[in-house]
């Protein structure tokens, strides 16, 4: 689109002549910046998306259901004991600089992560069970494991060119920008798109890799543009500056529906929100910490509170209906999700009955106390500063708890502060969210006993991942079992049992699975591929399916929004008219007002 925006000076003739052979660039508006192009350093979703364009990994995730699919590894097989995995690397993959990609590059990448420090940050969990990685010939990589693990089918590590990265030593890697002008030149991968231009804080531009081993994309390139204001991003979509707007919030999204030439799409997503209880904060060694209310250790109290929460109302009122009521900690779009047979319903009467029966009698002020009459049930709650959903969820919760004789105070804090509060156990309940990846291992690990808070030398306590302080030996045993189970059906069974254990003990109340809101111009590209099929997101997936498959809507459709120069004239006239009108009006006012004073 470069030539079309010279509207300030260049005449319309120049713009017209540029349009026939204009490049077909897919322009995506995003709100979150790429923090770092270096695949060992960046951590934002936008950074992961750029690596997905630039690099290939051994295996990928299917568009239909996230199941493992071959990418650079054409095929793989495991030994009977599951400890030796042999990957056959395709022989037609070539790096953007023309060097062929071989098994040597794969082994190099994995060994770099294995031996690395910085390199472990993003990919450590993939190699945790790997003993050694070796390229036995140009197309064969053999990995030896300490313990069998199903993660070997989901090795989402970007394969880097050895001939470039071997020039960057262990110290330099922390500061390597991986941009085209870096030394050695960055961005070289084997993926479907080639990094052309990186402007920190502004845009990243990619061209299509014409030598890609897979089917070469129809589009000529991709460009990410960063917007720090969602309003501005949506306006840019409306006026055709971008073709796609990612991660829009609900009010703006609602306003887009019915807009001409724009499809606003809400997709099922793997992010969800929850309410957690302080059911006994402690360090990993069992030392109790924090200020949790003793009543919350009682599963009956947690069940009663679960009955008091109306998730339909939360979805309706805090998400504008764009989501679904939650149950377990693996979201329903993954095959491993378990749906409880007998879900906890919204039933305040039942909640009151449970609490009465358990002996938490109401005091004179209507607030319940512990069965021995001590400790009125007054809970300290927290919500997240950066999330309105979080804040209104806690407000609703306070109202609902009042109905069942539980009083509360609530505070809004930053996520950083909430992380500290979680670690120190100085809360009774709070609202936060998770985003779950396709492999259930990580999400399930968050509820193991090992993930309690831990103390470092100077007495400071840090949060683990387990912010419900749920600890069950049987759950931990099942966690270990699923981590080494190579049969996917049996593993799913175990994962589902674990989710239901959590659900039945009311460790969390999963309030809602929220949708992902995206919008695109229907007059530009078509053929977006959802993941999972058919209701999933169409960009920012586990894979690059939409980028590979989209096509222009019609021949020369791009020229429709190519007329800033006539626009400039019309707009200038309009602007002048507005200014003139305003001036006349003000003059008229000031002329009238003295007379008014006289009369």
């Amino acid at each position: 689109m470069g030539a079309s925006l010279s509207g300030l000076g260049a005449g319309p003739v120049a713009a017209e002549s540029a349009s026939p052979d204009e490049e077909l660039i897919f322009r995506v508006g995003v709100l979150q910046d790429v923090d770092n192009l270096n695949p060992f350093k960046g951590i934002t979703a936008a950074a992961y998306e750029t690596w997905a364009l630039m690099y290939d990994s051994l295996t990928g995730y299917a568009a239909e259901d996230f199941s493992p699919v071959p990418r650079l590894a054409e095929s793989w097989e495991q030994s009977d004991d599951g400890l030796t995995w042999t990957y056959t690397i395709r022989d037609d993959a070539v790096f953007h600089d023309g060097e062929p990609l071989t098994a040597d590059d794969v082994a190099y990448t994995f060994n770099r992560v294995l031996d690395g420090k910085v390199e472990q940050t993003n990919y450590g969990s993939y190699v945790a069970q790997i003993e050694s990685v070796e390229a036995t010939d140009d197309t064969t990589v053999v990995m030896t494991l300490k313990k069998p693990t199903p993660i070997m089918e989901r090795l989402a590590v970007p394969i880097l060119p050895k001939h470039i990265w071997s020039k960057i030593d262990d110290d330099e890697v922390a500061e390597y920008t991986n941009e085209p002008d870096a030394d050695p030149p960055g961005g070289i991968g084997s993926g479907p798109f080639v990094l052309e231009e990186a402007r920190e804080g502004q845009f990243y531009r990619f061209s299509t890799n014409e030598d890609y081993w897979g089917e070469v994309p129809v589009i000529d390139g991709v460009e990410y543009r960063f917007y720090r204001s969602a309003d501005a991003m949506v306006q840019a979509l409306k006026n055709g500056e971008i073709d796609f707007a990612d991660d829009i919030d609900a009010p703006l999204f609602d306003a887009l529906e019915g807009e001409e030439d724009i499809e606003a799409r809400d997709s099922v997503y793997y992010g969800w929100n929850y309410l957690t209880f302080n059911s006994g904060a402690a360090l990993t060694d069992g030392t109790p910490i924090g200020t949790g209310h003793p009543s919350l250790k009682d599963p009956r109290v947690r069940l009663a509170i679960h009955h008091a929460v109306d998730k339909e109302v939360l979805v309706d009122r805090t998400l504008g209906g764009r989501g679904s009521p939650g149950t377990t900690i693996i979201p329903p779009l993954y095959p491993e999700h378990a749906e409880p047979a007998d879900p906890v319903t919204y039933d305040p009467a039942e909640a009151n009955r449970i609490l009465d029966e358990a002996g938490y009698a109401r005091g004179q002020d209507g607030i319940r106390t512990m069965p021995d009459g001590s400790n009125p049930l007054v809970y300290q709650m927290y919500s997240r500063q950066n999330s309105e959903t979080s804040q209104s969820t806690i407000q609703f919760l306070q109202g609902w708890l009042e109905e069942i004789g539980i009083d509360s105070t609530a505070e809004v804090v930053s996520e950083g502060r909430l992380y500290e509060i979680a670690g120190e156990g100085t809360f009774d309940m709070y609202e936060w969210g998770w985003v779950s990846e396709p492999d259930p291992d990580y999400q399930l690990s968050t509820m193991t006993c090992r993930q309690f808070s831990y103390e470092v030398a100077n007495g400071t306590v840090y949060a683990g991942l387990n912010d419900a302080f749920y600890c069950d030996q049987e759950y931990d045993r099942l966690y270990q079992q699923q981590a080494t189970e190579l049969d996917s059906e049996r593993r799913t069974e175990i994962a589902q049992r674990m989710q239901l254990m959590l659900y039945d003990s009311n460790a969390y109340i999963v309030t809602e699975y929220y949708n992902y809101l995206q919008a695109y111009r229907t007059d530009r590209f078509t053929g977006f591929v959802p993941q999972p099929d058919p209701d999933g997101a169409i960009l920012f997936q586990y894979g690059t399916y939409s980028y590979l498959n989209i096509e222009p809507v019609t021949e020369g459709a791009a020229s429709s929004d190519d007329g800033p120069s006539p626009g400039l004239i019309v707009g200038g006239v309009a602007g002048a008219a507005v200014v003139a009108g305003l001036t006349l009006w003000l003059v008229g006012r000031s002329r009238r007002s003295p007379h008014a004073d006289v009369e």
Partner: protein
Amino acid sequence: MAVDTATAVAASAAPRTGGLRRFVGYRLLSGLGTLVFVLLFNFFLFRMLPGDPAARYRAVKNISAADLARIRAELNAPLLQQFWDYLRDPLALNGISAWKGQPVWDLVGGRAWPTVVLLGASTVVSVLIGVWVGIKAGWNRGSRFDKVSTGVTLLFYATPEFWLGLLLIMCLSSGIGPFPGIFPSGGVIDSGIEPLSVDGALSVAEHTVLPATALGAVYLAEYSLIMRASMVDELGQEYLTTARAKGLMDHAVRRRHAVPNASLPTITLIFLNIGFIIGGAITVETVFSYPGLGLLTFEAVSEQDFVLMQALFLVFTGSVIAFNIVADIIIAVLDPRIRT
């Protein structure tokens, strides 16, 4: 004040140049002192910020507990040791941004030129128009021009920048009704264009029109109101009567006598503002996703990037101090009375 200041300047300037030199030297020295104080103050300021900078790593699913502990250990080093590290590199010359992983001065450098462009465009426009309107309105106090312009400028003065910015985007970027949008809604330059070329300059200009208008409107209003007030103050002065008595035409009285005297407060304000706008365009730059220093500040604070904040605050303090000194010197040159 009853003396014609122009002659006063002429009479006193020659023997007092030593005074000016001493004045400038004194101002530079005290500016340096302020800078040192701010450097020390900034250290404690950032460390008083609430929150946990390591919490951003919670999003990194694969970070090991040991790595997290290492990051935390750096953040939790004893304050004295951190202060020592800070003093060894107070300008953060070797600082690496925790958020972007790049040397902070590379980041700041890359973001400086858009801010300078934006600042330059908005200052030129707001000074030229604002001062002209202020002079005209003040000189003809009570005229229709005065009433209209005071009304309009008050309206601009009271308008929040971000709101004006959003309004501009909606009207001139998206287009209203049959009128197409004409300006881009964000960024500073299009991709695939070399900034130091004709196309690059045009692209930057196109991207700068709206943010510069939003930023300039507020300052324009400020300059015109201050200029008008100073003009009104001068209106009744006896030296103007004297000037008229000499037989000068009205516009000559205004240009040669009233305006030079009335412009001192505005000049001071303009230079003070330049110092502040360098860091103060945060809202406008955020609304227009304009990748300058203001937006970078917003990002540094939201990412809790201490080293980056340190470098940015240094730039801002430096610019405020520098332009203060410039303003002082210019005033001292224009008006010898204040060289003490």
